[in-house]
């Protein structure tokens, strides 16, 4: 049943949030420390085990997949309720932060690619195919 997938998702989310709150208390900050990340970690570990042992029916998987397909629409709804009016003041900073983050990341690609065995270039395309 699809609801089983949602149940699994709920268990992961609540456990992750709880762990995040406990961690926040432990390090003395009034914040949820990494809760969503922990929940994702739980979901990967538990679903990997369940899938490996054929314990998650396709219907239950569909229940989870539905929410991952809703991810971008929900994010769009989230952006529509932010205080953009106030953020526009800081506009140049947002743009600069985005630009510099990309520039730095590009610079790291050749450096980290050198770690380990070198990759083999894909064979030349017959001619650049358009997607």
């Amino acid at each position, binding site marked *: 049943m699809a609801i089983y997938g949602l149940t699994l998702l709920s268990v992961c989310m609540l456990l992750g949030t709880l762990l995040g709150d406990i961690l926040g208390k432990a390090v003395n900050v009034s914040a949820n*420390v*990494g809760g969503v990340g922990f929940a*994702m970690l739980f*979901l990967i570990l538990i679903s*990997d085990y369940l899938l490996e042992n054929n314990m998650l029916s396709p219907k239950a998987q569909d229940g989870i997949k539905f929410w991952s397909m809703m991810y971008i629409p929900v994010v*769009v709804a989230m952006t529509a309720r*932010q205080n953009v009016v*106030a953020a526009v003041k800081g506009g140049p900073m947002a743009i600069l932060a985005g630009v510099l983050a990309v520039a730095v990341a*590009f610079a790291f690609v050749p450096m980290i690619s050198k770690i380990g065995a070198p*990759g083999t270039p894909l064979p030349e395309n017959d001619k650049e195919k358009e997607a």
Partner: protein
Amino acid sequence: MEMIVAIFTKYGLVMAFLIIGVVMYIAGLISKATNKRIAGSAIAILIGLVLAYVGGVASGEGAGGLSKIPLFSGLGIMGGSMLRDYCIISTAFGARISEIKKAGLAGIISLFVGVIASFVVGVVLAIMFGYSDVVSATTIGAGAVTFIVGPVTGAALGASSDVVALSIAAGVVKSILVMIMTPFVAKSIGLNNPKSAMVYGGLMGTTSGTAAGLAATDARLVPYGAMTATFFTGLGCLMCPSVLFLATKAILG
């Protein structure tokens, strides 16, 4: 007219599905017009930000964006932190441990370097522009990681809505730049094999940006880059509100 408004207000969440569906459709059309060079999702998020601006001006208070107008109140439920986190967590489903192992050492290092480097850039800029309190600087730094990690971090730390909006904007700029710039820099950064594509995905992190950018470079590289990129948001959500927040706090005091 009053009856229609009353129904829309009463069934707010249903109304939100309608609005967002229309926004996604329009974004898809615009994406097609750019030859899919800019992914529909990034355009949809931009439209969302514009709507929030319009709504904020119309309602006269800014905070809450479009959801402050009663007719669009359902957006507040759909885009609230509960459903948002639920969806974000669900995207981790299907990531198999065997696949993570395949990414190898370079892939894993690229993930950590990618998250930390973007975060540091964001934090430094936030401080330079006067957002020097720990929570705001961390949230904006997280936004430079991706437009998801920003709001997740902001919600966890209790950042103000305008700072969250800034962090989303920084992430969207990053995502769009990755889409557009990748084909142009591909050659000079050696982006022609699966391994460098995985490293690239791990460094850039924005899944939509990476997938669209690689598709424009060489479509065969997309699955490799996308694989590491999917772990990037998860790692960012794990590290930004925790280790990186504490590190920022220790440095800023």
